């Protein structure tokens, strides 16, 4: 089992996605297939940008990998999501207008994470924060990977 934790700063748009791009490289070094490293990268990128754009104090991106699975956890301490169903609706976004010029605010982030993962869990409490955990099953997927 190897664990990697990245600290993500709130508002740091300039470096947004750097941790996820690095993560992909690290996972490849751990022997993860290209296809699964790519999927992990997609999940991590969406989560990393959410922390940058929405989390009051940023948060952490933690990834644990062993022979059976890749676990990706994103955690922040606020502000928390008021209506999870609404947040999970395709196209719904609370991104500021300026973010669209940089390519953000499609309202697809959480949905992309959910459908890229084999298993997805989200919990959020206003005033406490949000925790998302995604799992990619290596045993199920690696045989079909390139």
């Amino acid at each position, binding site marked *: 089992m190897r664990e990697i934790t990245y600290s993500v700063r709130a508002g740091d748009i300039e470096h947004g*996605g750097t941790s996820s791009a690095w993560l992909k490289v690290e996972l490849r070094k751990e022997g993860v297939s290209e296809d699964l490293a790519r999927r992990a990268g997609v999940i991590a990128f969406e989560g990393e940008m959410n922390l940058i754009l929405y989390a009051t104090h940023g948060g952490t991106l933690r990834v644990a990998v062993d022979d059976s699975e890749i676990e990706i956890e994103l955690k922040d301490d606020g502000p928390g999501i008021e209506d999870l169903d609404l947040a999970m609706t395709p196209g719904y976004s609370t991104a500021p207008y300026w973010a669209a010029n940089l390519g953000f605010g499609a309202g697809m*982030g959480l949905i992309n994470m959910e459908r890229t993962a084999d298993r997805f869990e989200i919990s959020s409490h206003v005033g406490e924060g949000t925790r998302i955990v995604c799992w990619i099953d290596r045993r199920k997927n690696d045989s079909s990977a390139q």
Partner: protein
Amino acid sequence: MKLAEVTELLDGEILEGVDASEMIIDRAYAADLLSDVLALTDERTTLITGTISPQVIRVADILNVVAIIFVRGKRPPQSVVTYAQRVGIPVMCTKMTMFESCGLLYANGVRSCKNRPVTGAGAGCAK
């Protein structure tokens, strides 16, 4: 089509990756919003976009995009071009719109990559 032919067709300019001018461009995906880009499934796809933030290259790197075409006269800052060079993704720009660029590429045999349209509640389009 070869990348060099695409550049000529779109009256564009290769900003990085002249060495890759023989690269075959046969599939493409066009979007400005990165989550829409991240929704594409296929590898070895060319990305057509009007977004020039550094995250475009990071997303392209994660997805194994083979080349990026910046449309509407958008020219990424040198730092973004340098980043593309570091990760080995050729980038070009054109003054044409996304619509014109896609139309011309399609007419010349480039096809859409497989993607995964959003389905289920809230997806909007019923068909």
